[in-house]
């Protein structure tokens, strides 16, 4: 039976103070043994530099490198031989057989992430320009219209928004506030009509800020987990998800019990 090439993924830890030339030499050897066995490197990256969960050879930190390649099984053995030969520089290594689908999937995910990042940047730029234009327009408006009620609403907005550091039209609000001070120093701050307008405007604006999060939430969780293993902030979400799943499950079982 003919031996066919497989997909492998090798993760190895080097000591944090490894010399660049040593690393280059090791990586060259790995590449050579892959190409000597009808293989090709799909990905060779630095994965992370992080603290080790326990000390290895008295090192508390290590640099993780990942190597994804397609080659004959004999290449795999040779790679492991090389890595164990340099055991003073390589603290740990592990090779795992993967599938073509997994490799392609990861590739696609990476491309998608890059694309999304690019899109986000674009959107941010567009938003910035839009905001600048809106600011100009509203500045003109503020100059022409000088009703105290409107200005007061603007003032309330300033108070509510500053802690959240919203970037929306700070210039306009500032001018409005100043006008209030100049023209209506004795303005009652508890006029119901005024409060109402203020509330409506706040409500309109807060969802905009939060709109993007819920949709992305799930994918974001996975991505963050994969790329930034040191971030532990996402944990509280799991119990909630688990609970909701549990609740559904319990409902189902209860219904079944009643019908029986």
């Amino acid at each position, binding site marked *: 039976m003919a031996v066919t090439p497989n997909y492998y993924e090798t993760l190895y830890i080097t000591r944090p103070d490894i010399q660049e030339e040593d690393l280059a030499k090791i990586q060259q050897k790995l590449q050579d043994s892959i190409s000597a066995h009808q293989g090709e490197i799909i990905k060779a990256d630095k994965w992370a530099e992080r603290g080790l969960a326990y000390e290895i050879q008295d090192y508390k930190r290590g640099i993780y490198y990942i190597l994804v390649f397609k080659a004959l099984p004999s290449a795999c053995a040779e790679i492991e031989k090389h890595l164990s030969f340099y055991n003073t520089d390589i603290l740990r290594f*592990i090779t795992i057989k993967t599938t073509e689908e997994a490799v392609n999937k990861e590739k696609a995910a990476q491309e998608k992430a890059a694309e999304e990042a690019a899109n986000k940047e674009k959107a941010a730029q567009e938003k910035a320009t839009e905001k600048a234009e809106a600011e100009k327009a509203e500045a003109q408006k503020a100059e022409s219209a000088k009703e105290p009620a409107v200005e007061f609403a603007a003032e309330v907005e300033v108070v509510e928004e500053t802690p959240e550091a919203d970037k929306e039209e700070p210039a306009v609000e500032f001018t409005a506030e100043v006008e209030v001070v100049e023209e209506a120093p004795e303005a009652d701050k508890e006029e119901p009509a005024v409060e109402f307008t203020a509330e409506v405007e706040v409500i309109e604006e807060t969802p905009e800020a939060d709109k993007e999060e819920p949709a992305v939430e799930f994918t974001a969780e996975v991505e963050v987990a994969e790329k930034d293993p040191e971030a532990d902030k996402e944990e509280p979400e799991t119990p909630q998800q688990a609970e909701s799943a549990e609740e559904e499950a319990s409902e189902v079982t209860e219904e079944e019990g009643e019908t029986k």
Partner: protein
Amino acid sequence: MDSRRDRRYFTKKKVCRFCTEPIEIDYKNVDLMSRFITDRKKIVPRRNSGLCAHHQRQLSSAIKRTRFMALLPYTVLH
């Protein structure tokens, strides 16, 4: 039968997370792996994790790889 027992002890039937959600068990995903270890860094047993046999086995070998690569500790007694 099960439902009666569930009701009496207020336990809820869990559905395997990896069967219902499109998450891959990857030993490099430290964040995910660390959700399935206890305070004492033991692998969470199936009765608590609620995973099916297939995924519990996959997870447990993934956690062992994660430990080997010093991404997670074996124990708190270092």
